[in-house]
């Protein structure tokens, strides 16, 4: 007689603890910075999104809502992209570059030319293109 298969190990994905469905970054929900230099939505934030006395209005301003919208969709907001010091931004951009790098091995000839042009102009066209894309 065939032995019964071992019980399936319990999933430890955190789903049963409510550990799921988080945005790309939780800062603009959970944290807020009321500083002399201005209001910031996160600790790596740059630039300021309001002056110190405006903290109550800025908490739900159009600018911070846009940041939350992007992050809840799993994307970096244009504001985030202005904060290259943020480790999350660095990680996401590094991942994007890796993905782009692996794709480039099979790129058609036209794309190879574009990449060469990009390098020729100190990668400035690429930066402008990415800024427009993420906006």
């Amino acid at each position, binding site marked *: 007689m065939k032995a019964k298969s071992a019980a399936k190990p319990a999933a430890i994905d955190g789903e049963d603890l*409510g550990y799921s469905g988080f945005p790309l970054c939780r800062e603009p929900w959970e*944290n807020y910075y009321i500083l*002399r230099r201005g209001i910031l939505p996160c600790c790596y934030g740059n630039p300021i999104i309001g002056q110190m006395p405006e903290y109550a209005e800025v908490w739900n301003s159009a600018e911070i809502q846009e940041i939350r919208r992007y992050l809840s969709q799993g994307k970096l907001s244009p504001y985030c992209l202005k904060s290259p010091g943020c480790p999350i931004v660095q990680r996401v951009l590094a991942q994007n570059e890796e993905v782009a790098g692996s794709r480039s091995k099979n790129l058609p000839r036209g794309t190879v030319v574009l990449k060469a042009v990009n390098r020729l102009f100190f990668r400035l066209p690429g930066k402008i293109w990415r800024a427009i894309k993420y906006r």
Partner: protein
Amino acid sequence: MDMSSPYGQGWFDWEKQDIVPFRWMSREADLHFRGLGLPDARCLYIVARHLFADQPSPKLEVFADGRSLGEALIPAQFTILFFPFTAGGDVSITLRLDRVHSAPGDGRALGVMVQEADVISVNTLERPVYGAGWYDWETDGTYSFRWMGRRSEVVLPGKKAQSRRYLTFPVFSDFYDSSQILTLSYGGRPVAEWPVIHGWGFYSCDLAPLQDRWKGGFDVIPLLELRVNKLYPAKYHAEDGRELGVRIGLLEFHDDEAWHADSAFFRENARKNYEEMRAGRTELQSFPQSLGIDLFGRCNISPPCVYCLWDRMKEMEGSHVDTVVDESTLESYGPFFRSARFLVNCSFGEPLLHPRLGEILKVCADRKKVVELSSNGQAFTDRTIKALVGKPVNLYISLDAATRETYAKIRNDRWDDIIPSLVKLHEERKKAGNFPRIFLVFIPMRVNAGDLEEYFRLARRIEADKLVLRPLLFLGKPKIQRDRGGYHFDYAQEMLSREELEALFKNADRFSRQYGVTVASQFDFGKTEHPSAAKATAP
């Protein structure tokens, strides 16, 4: 007959398990308590365990002068069991078990092992007495706490419970979604039902309903019963076989109505904030759980530290450069202050220089908030040490160097003053529950790359709670160059490459094990620790 010993018929002689004395009781045993005084609220407590192999727990019934005080199942570990009653004078207690057993080679009919049995007067208790359902005291680096299982009970000191209106204590849940519910019954009445938020949060319970009954006589025992609707799933603490519910910190009484209201607001806000975040809401009804504040805008290091963006920041501060931020400013933030469990100081300035540091930290401590301060370590005086000691403060001390020479290249020549004052702070905090927590910060750069191991030694010497690796802020290609301590500091050149950082992290791992110092890496900012990585226990 020994009049001071309550043990009557039905007990075998005292024995020892390891070094712990106990005596076996047979199927039925008596206890006699003489001269208890006037009738009063009392509690019989019995510390007992069973040794029945592979059988359900035996049931114990308790009677006082023939009147039933209740029954309880005896667990397999020594546990305090409570049986409240009201009585005075002489009282005879009868204990009756539903079964006995015999050990091989031992002809005795053995019931359960009893370490201690006594009657306490709840009015004279100074501290809570923990009963069934608790594990031993532990600490997780934030608070001292006891894990409770699905149900636990504790007898509160009667006089304090009568004279103070509220009971407060910190609770930690491992559930992110507040689906773990903690229910409290006091004196037999339900008094609170709390969805518990993730992490540590303070809760406050109104004892007034029972206090009204106290006025009527002695019929109520201040027995607090705690229950959770579900346990922390065992798969997340597989190495720990215990049945774990929530962590409960020290119980304290208070009369602060404002704090009681704040705790309810805080709890409800945290739950709402989590739900709004998960739902992807952009316009929030909730408020942040952590508030960045700017306590003090002046610094005692001039010229500023070599990597500090001082001039640019002071320019940005503009007309607010001298704005006063103190405890009344924080309270004026209203719901932004009340909702915060952490207050993180982000000032470009040395916060310990604030003339009202003591008052600020006291208000925050009274409101059960953890304050995070980053200090350059050059402002430890009797005044600032007194303000810090015993307060729930996470103190990040940025030295970035482990030698006088490296320190001079980054800051100035005050290295020799810093270490003795750090040692003094540590000596003082040891007398006050190890608060503030001390986190030694190290920003890896080219200038200090050789100091890492010595920095671990320093962290061990002052028993720092953690050594924090913090990234040098990436600024693209900054033109920040300074000459200090015979060293030319070029910001752009000081950034370590990814490969260099990875090598440094490996060394940090090795030193962490070698010197027994915990490392926290802020390079991992934004990565939420997965529940499977959480440590359930540190007994």
